[in-house]
């Protein structure tokens, strides 16, 4: 195939990606969008194989079989609760691919004794740096989410100084390499090493509760690294796709930060959750009112409107399916049931929605914070299941609280609140919750799944 035709076909692939993202704007067209996007990818692969005849196809076929097989297996085997880890791992591999392609291009020029053009060289070094950070940073994010390592922020003295020194060192090496008439292998390998170390060091001081922001940001990095690879191999479709993914990750990071009332810099460098934080107001001397499943079932049956606030605890207990069963029963008794989803309810943006969709909860009953916050006042009963910080009124009222200013679901405005919770322990961010001591609130202690199962049984008898 000739140059211009190849270029136009690549453009076709890029259009598929754009349409794919456009159709993600509605659940009704999203499946089609993703498939069109996948078709674009297939097109890009076929064009590449036809336009750049390989010397040997052995390596290509081996790579496609191993990588494709692994990808398919992961995609089918992964549980919906483990989706954040899966995405973290995929981000890392995307960054890793850019790192390796950049390195291969560098090695090629070394071996053939070719000079890298200035612009190629700049893009190559940026691709390697960002790709390396994305690879190891994502591996750490994966390990934290998979609980292979502690979710707590890991800090040590002079950490920020070390990171700054490493980053400046990496930039210095890159500038040195680019301005040399001939790039050298030694400094290049040092740069790769520094990039890999930086990825680890930048993510370990970030606490588990902030992982949604980190995954979004690493998503963005993997896109930028792909775009830089596009500059290296002079292929526009990589630049376009990389830029699209880069902007997607940045927007999601911003949304997450806004939902936590924190700046991106604070999330990345604030080491939030390094120690157990105690709110200014102590919970001592206050008692929480305990309730029982049969009482809650009665409240539920005679309510007109109920809002369910699910948190990650619901997913951990695998209680989504029982919850839907409960909601179905209540609806048969004429109760209106809605779900209020806080942006950081799961472990990544939109995670809770996926978990509820898996349990067949219709997506038109899921409402995000801004849509539903005005409705709590008119709601008879709120069921808080496995959520904590996102319903803590201290965010509105207590300037000394670490979460002060964070937008929350105003469940304390409802007529009655029932909190399903394992015990009185503090939440993921380690903060005391005064909602539990509110006279309107009753606590139903126990495993979320068992409590909900009891509620279903009680509700059936009414």
């Amino acid at each position: 195939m000739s140059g211009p035709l190849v270029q136009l076909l690549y453009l076709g692939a890029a259009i598929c990606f754009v349409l794919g993202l456009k159709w993600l704007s509605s659940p009704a067209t999203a499946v089609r969008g993703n498939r069109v996007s996948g078709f674009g990818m297939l097109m890009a692969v076929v064009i590449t194989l036809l336009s750049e005849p390989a010397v040997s196809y052995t390596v290509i076929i081996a790579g496609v079989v191993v990588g494709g097989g692994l990808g398919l297996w992961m995609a089918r085997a992964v549980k919906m609760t483990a989706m954040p880890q899966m995405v973290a791992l995929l981000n890392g591999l995307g960054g890793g691919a850019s790192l390796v392609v950049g390195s291969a291009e560098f090695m090629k020029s070394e071996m053939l004794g070719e000079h890298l053009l200035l612009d190629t060289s700049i893009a190559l070094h940026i691709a390697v740096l960002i790709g390396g950070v994305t690879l190891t940073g994502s591996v750490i994010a994966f390990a934290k989410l998979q609980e292979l390592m502690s979710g707590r922020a890991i800090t040590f003295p002079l950490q920020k100084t070390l990171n700054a020194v490493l980053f400046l060192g990496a930039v210095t090496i890159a500038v040195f390499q680019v301005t040399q008439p001939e790039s050298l292998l030694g400094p290049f390998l040092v740069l790769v090493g520094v990039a890999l170390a930086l990825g680890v060091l930048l993510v370990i001081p970030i606490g588990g509760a902030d992982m949604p922001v980190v995954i979004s940001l690493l998503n963005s990095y993997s896109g930028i690294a792909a775009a830089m690879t596009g500059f290296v191999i002079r292929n526009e479709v990589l630049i376009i796709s990389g830029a699209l993914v880069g902007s997607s990750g940045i927007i999601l990071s911003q949304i997450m930060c806004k939902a936590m009332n924190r700046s991106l810099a604070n999330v990345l460098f604030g080491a939030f959750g390094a120690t157990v934080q105690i709110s200014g107001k102590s919970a001592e001397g206050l008692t929480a009112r305990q309730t029982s499943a049969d009482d809650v079932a009665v409240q539920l049956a005679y309510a007109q409107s109920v809002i369910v606030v699910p948190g990650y605890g619901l997913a951990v207990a695998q209680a989504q399916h029982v919850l839907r069963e409960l909601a179905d029963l209540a609806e048969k008794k004429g109760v209106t049931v809605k779900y209020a989803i806080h942006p950081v309810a799961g472990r990544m943006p939109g995670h809770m929605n996926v978990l509820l969709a898996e349990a067949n909860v219709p997506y038109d009953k899921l409402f995000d914070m801004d849509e539903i916050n005005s409705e709590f006042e008119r709601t008879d009963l709120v069921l808080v299941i496995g959520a904590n910080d996102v319903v803590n009124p201290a965010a509105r009222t207590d300037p000394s609280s670490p979460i002060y200013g964070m937008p929350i679901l105003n469940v304390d405005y409802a007529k009655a609140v029932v909190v399903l919770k394992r015990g009185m322990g503090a939440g993921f961010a380690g903060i005391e919750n005064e909602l539990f001591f509110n006279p309107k609130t009753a606590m139903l202690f126990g495993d979320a799944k068992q409590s909900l199962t009891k509620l279903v049984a009680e509700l059936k008898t009414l």
Partner: protein
Amino acid sequence: MLETLIAGIVIFTLSTFLGVELIHRVPSTLHTPLMSGANAISGITVVGALIMAGAGHGWISNVLGFLAVVFAMVNVAGGYVVTDRMLQMFKRKPTVEAE
């Protein structure tokens, strides 16, 4: 050389703006599939990986090419399939009960 660089920068900048416009329209309920889907798109590096893997510049280049293809293919295959799996769950008609 400068022309291709400038053209690349123009494409990158405009695509970023396009991306921002597109992503802002995605409802929060689809943000997880958006991320995995976007991730699959960033697997476009597979194009570069295939070229490297097929070039046959000796064993280092072969090893790196193989690794690059594996990484990118996991990204592509895993990303698209898992996104499809999630989106199928949202496609279910709100009135249909799976009981």
